């Protein structure tokens, strides 16, 4: 309704998403400039459609072989705001089709930025504890001035905690099929354990994550060593760090 007819679609996948969104857009009452509530008060409750849209965007962004970090960060921050304002009993969106999922993992695992991919892996693992999403709506008051980095986010929410449970399918499909065309010597180490034990979160989640009961202490230590070793190569400690 608001888009000009000259607008071009970027990819074919968005055709399917577009139909879904058109249905969802209807209840975005708070965006209607004629609505009396809009001009007076900022929207305090997002419709679930905006949440869905943001989740889809996050998927799309992560699907890129090398995600645009700015786009990713902005979408994640927006998603945080939306999620913070949503009612506790929001129902989760229907899962996107499974074909999207293995490619997400493919690209994530192929990323050489060990900490980013590990943190994302940890969040994928966290999806099995999806109740965590509905338990922590944040009051808007502590948003604070947007420019300042807000204090520590609630421990149960990582940066990318808001992925839909669809990625849980990853565990069902099994991981072996994903690595067929990748040189698996790198992945044959203990880091990448098959589906039965789930993906391992990174060690830096340790203090904050209450939802990782099946982690083995020894495996955590091993992971810690590997990651610390990797990080040492990349950034040896210097003054002021």
């Amino acid at each position, binding site marked *: 309704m608001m*888009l000009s007819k000259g607008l071009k679609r970027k990819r074919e996948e968005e055709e399917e998403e577009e139909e879904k969104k058109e249905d969802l857009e209807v209840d975005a009452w708070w965006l209607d400039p004629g609505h009396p509530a809009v001009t007076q008060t900022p929207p305090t409750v997002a419709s679930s459609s905006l949440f869905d849209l943001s989740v889809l965007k996050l998927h799309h962004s992560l699907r890129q072989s090398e995600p*645009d970090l700015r786009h990713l960060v902005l979408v994640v921050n927006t998603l945080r705001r939306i999620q913070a304002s949503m009612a506790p009993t929001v129902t989760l969106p229907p899962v996107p089709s499974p074909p999207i999922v293995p490619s997400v993992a493919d690209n994530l695992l192929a990323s050489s930025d060990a900490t980013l991919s590990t943190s994302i892996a940890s969040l994928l693992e966290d999806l099995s504890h999806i109740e965590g999403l509905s338990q922590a709506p944040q009051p808007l008051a502590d948003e604070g001035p947007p420019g300042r980095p807000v204090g520590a986010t609630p421990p149960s929410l990582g940066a990318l905690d808001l992925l839909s449970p669809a990625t849980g399918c990853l565990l069902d499909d099994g991981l072996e099929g994903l690595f067929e065309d990748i040189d698996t010597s790198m992945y044959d180490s203990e880091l990448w354990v098959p589906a039965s034990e789930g993906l391992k979160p990174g060690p830096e989640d340790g203090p904050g994550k209450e939802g990782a009961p099946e982690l083995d202490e020894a495996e955590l230590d091993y992971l810690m060593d590997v990651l610390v070793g990797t990080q040492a190569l990349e950034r040896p400690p210097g003054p002021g760090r």
Partner: protein
Amino acid sequence: MHQPPPASCSRSSCCVCARVGVRVSALAPAAAPCPAPSRSLGPRPPEPPSRGTSTLPLAPLGPWCSPTGSPAPLSCETGCGEGSWILVCRLLVPTQVSLLSMEEDIDTRKINNSFLRDHSYATEADIISTVEFNHTGELLATGDKGGRVVIFQREQESKNQVHRRGEYNVYSTFQSHEPEFDYLKSLEIEEKINKIRWLPQQNAAYFLLSTNDKTVKLWKVSERDKRPEGYNLKDEEGRLRDPATITTLRVPVLRPMDLMVEATPRRVFANAHTYHINSISVNSDYETYMSADDLRINLWNFEITNQSFNIVDIKPANMEELTEVITAAEFHPHHCNTFVYSSSKGTIRLCDMRASALCDRHTKFFEEPEDPSNRSFFSEIISSISDVKFSHSGRYIMTRDYLTVKVWDLNMENRPIETYQVHDYLRSKLCSLYENDCIFDKFECVWNGSDSVIMTGSYNNFFRMFDRNTKRDVTLEASRENSKPRAILKPRKVCVGGKRRKDEISVDSLDFSKKILHTAWHPSENIIAVAATNNLYIFQDKVN
């Protein structure tokens, strides 16, 4: 092949010493004003209230001020209100074949493989991704998504063809970056040219920096109009002659030839950026430059390609805590120790390299408090700064976020001194623009030569100019249908509500696929270059 990145030298102690060494040499010119191209201050805008003492001395007056201190009339001082703009020429970035533009060919298949460029339609590879005049305005460089750089040169003035003055013609074309494959990460590296920056001219050759996501290259563009003839050991085709057949010796002479412009890569600065480079900026000492990606800024010496110094690093130890990225960075035009960088949260940090080796702690922090009445879920996205530019005088910085352009005084950190609405009618459409990703578009902004007018792009091939003195603004359109050469551009207007008048266009009719992201302004004259997909429009102020 992929090599391990050179040490981010700020980390090891020996390199800290080396960096101090580099900075000592940079300090010397800082004591006296760095040599910089003279700029006119133009009509001085009203003095804003200053807070405390300024740490930066005012830039010296340029040569265009008369001895009494009042600026002499300049062509570029007429501003955007008094003059009218005419189209000088529309240039298509030349492809190998047909000159069909993207507007005619609605087929938007992404064709990134080079072998497909031989087909007879303009491809996505021809989309212009950066535009930049050199310091004299004689040359205009464009970079495109296909990794090519095309340099245009201004037509020389001649008495016979006065009407041709101001036209730009192709001077040189070369492939700056090729698509690469990072085998370590199994990623393709785009060849799209993100930025071009010229170096000031120091000899007969021209030098420019061009960068894609990962690699910066220094290119030398030089002319050759003579060639040697009359070799003894080679014949005219270059084949070696049998020495036994040579009976006489001759001295080779230089003979004139058709002008040939050749571009050669002189330096390649690679492997220093994990994330995508968004900015490069040449320092006023002309010895160093910086490159900025999403999380880090590196300082380079032009002569050294295997080392760069990391001067800003905002990567958090835990990537889950990442909430902010660097979006643009620029050196101060006169003070070689000072630079600014902007962020995705709408903040600008000014840093002084003399303060510490790692400039993670800023000297100044510019941020405007959020307007509570305009708050929405998209507040952060629309506050994300897409471009930051110092004024030529060095006293102000201009920032572009999604809906506005802001001018900041370096002495006042808590709010901008001027805010201009580029397309405020989009404020009620943010959700749609978020859906189609237009809200993430990165518009650039430019100053005119005298810092009195600022320009930026919008949608529907519109671009906007704001006169800082008269507070007047104008919307113009860069499109084929509406401009005949030498015809005066008609100001455009967007109808935001109520009855639409005859010449106005309604918000819902705007074409969001036609975006003007890249523009450039001649350093001393009222000539502007506007890039619209694969078209480059050159407009000139008719007052000239």
